[in-house]
């Protein structure tokens, strides 16, 4: 098992998501940047849906009470094994009693820590994802314990594997038309595609708010289904991009829908990045 010495800013267990209960209002959840999470699991030969740790903005510190083989991928930060900085490696064999710590994210926001066989946590409604109303868990806390299958560890894997995906800080976020797109005027569309937006600090796993408001006359709509990647336009002209823990139904204009890859890209986008929506046709 592993003890959480410091939980970091916001760390949780995630997998690919909780499906089949959206009609009851259960968010799908899952890793914010799914391509990085999948890479971390792939490096260890895990299933794509294996449960892993997601860290946000500031990484966590873990004490290994059993030996383990781990991999990490996603945002870049300083990684230390017993105070020794690890460079150019993203798969590690960890000995008993070792401390593994992750610093503040320097490029990207979300970092994934995978372990061979995945973390063993309670599966509720088919998923390990933390979500308060479902499994009583929202984030990791200091002193809590994470479990895994110790018999699977220290397998023959390529320890010097360094394959990593570069965090894509491209300002263009690819979107498709959303359900209320047809209600926009040409001027509205011009505003939405020409304005440079930045991500507000008032953002979380449910949604990323954008700082810049647009002067567009939108109305509330009868509550209708929404999904991760939906760009909502509020009555006040604020844009909210729904993310993985998004509610399942919403009452604002759904102007755009991010492509699956652009959801991952936005998840890792720097708050300094000036984002522009690129409408695909």
């Amino acid at each position, binding site marked *: 098992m592993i003890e959480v010495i410091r939980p970091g800013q916001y760390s949780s267990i995630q997998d690919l998501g909780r499906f089949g209960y959206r009609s009851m*209002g259960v968010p799908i959840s899952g890793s914010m940047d799914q391509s990085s999470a999948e890479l971390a699991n792939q490096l260890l030969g895990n299933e794509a849906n294996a449960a892993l740790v997601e860290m946000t903005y500031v990484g966590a510190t873990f004490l290994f009470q059993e030996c383990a083989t781990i991999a990490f991928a996603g945002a870049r930060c300083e990684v230390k094994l017993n105070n020794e900085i690890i460079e150019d490696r993203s798969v590690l064999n960890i000995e008993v009693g070792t401390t593994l710590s992750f610093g503040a994210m320097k490029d990207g926001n979300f970092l994934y820590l995978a372990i061979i066989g995945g973390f063993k946590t309670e599966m509720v*409604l088919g998923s390990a994802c933390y979500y308060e109303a479902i499994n009583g868990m929202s984030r990791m806390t200091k002193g809590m314990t994470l479990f895994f299958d110790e018999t699977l560890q220290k397998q023959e894997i390529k320890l010097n594997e360094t394959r990593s995906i570069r965090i894509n800080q491209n300002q263009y976020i690819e979107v*498709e*038309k959303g359900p209320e797109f047809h209600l926009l005027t040409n001027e509205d569309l011009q505003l939405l595609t020409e304005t440079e937006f930045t991500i507000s600090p008032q953002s979380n796993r449910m949604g990323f708010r954008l700082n810049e408001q647009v002067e567009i006359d939108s109305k509330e709509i*009868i509550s209708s289904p929404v*999904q991760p990647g*939906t760009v909502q336009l509020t009555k006040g002209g604020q844009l909210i991009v729904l993310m993985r823990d998004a509610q*399942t*139904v919403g009452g604002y204009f759904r102007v755009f829908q991010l*492509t699956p890859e652009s959801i991952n890209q936005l998840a890792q986008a720097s708050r300094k990045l000036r984002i522009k929506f690129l409408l695909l046709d």
Partner: protein
Amino acid sequence: MGSPIVRKYGSHAVLMEWESIISPAIHDQVVGTAEFLKENHVDWILEIVPSYHSLVVYLKENVDLERYIGICQAIKVPINSGINSNKTWLVPTCYDSSFGYDLNAVSTSSELSPETIIKLHSEAQYRIYGMGFLPGFLYLGVLDEQIHTPRKSVVKQLVPKGSVGIGGKQTGIYPQKSPGGWNVIGRTPIELFNPTLKNPSPFSVGDSIQFTPISLEEYDEVLTEVQNGNYELKFVSND
């Protein structure tokens, strides 16, 4: 009643949308179509989310979206409405002021006595138009106009689980403890959402509910039965 508009909604989902009004007749179409799709397209569909006047079909990865849109456009509506629910679930609710701590505020704003508010609130049947906002939260049909009450200007940090409230034209039940701005007029001891069950919500979209007033003693009795797992929610059929 016209055919729904069928639109692509992202790379793996299809939106079907009817006329933009809240009405039982439109909602019958939504629910009937959702049932039809679930029965006939089981190999293609991941899940369906129905709401007031629209539904979204979330498709499995390998489904050809353009082809599926064509299939949905060819569906003949109205879908058989005979499969729609006629169930009204009876939700035991204690309107004691210790639970309904905003009953007096609603009384002041509506200029009605608490007894009249309880009567108006509990005599109506509310259709379940959808679920969302929180797991197990029910979007219910409209409330009697006399007891419409604006949301509170200050959000209460912790509204207890099971609280029954009024927010504007709507009434609803908090399935979990949560921050909230609705005027709380009572509390139900039943579980709106139990994630440890295979079917976490006892309700289906298209069913109706009615609040049944109970005393504090009855509240405690029902709560004990709920906690012991031997409470069975009752319903009536509206034939």
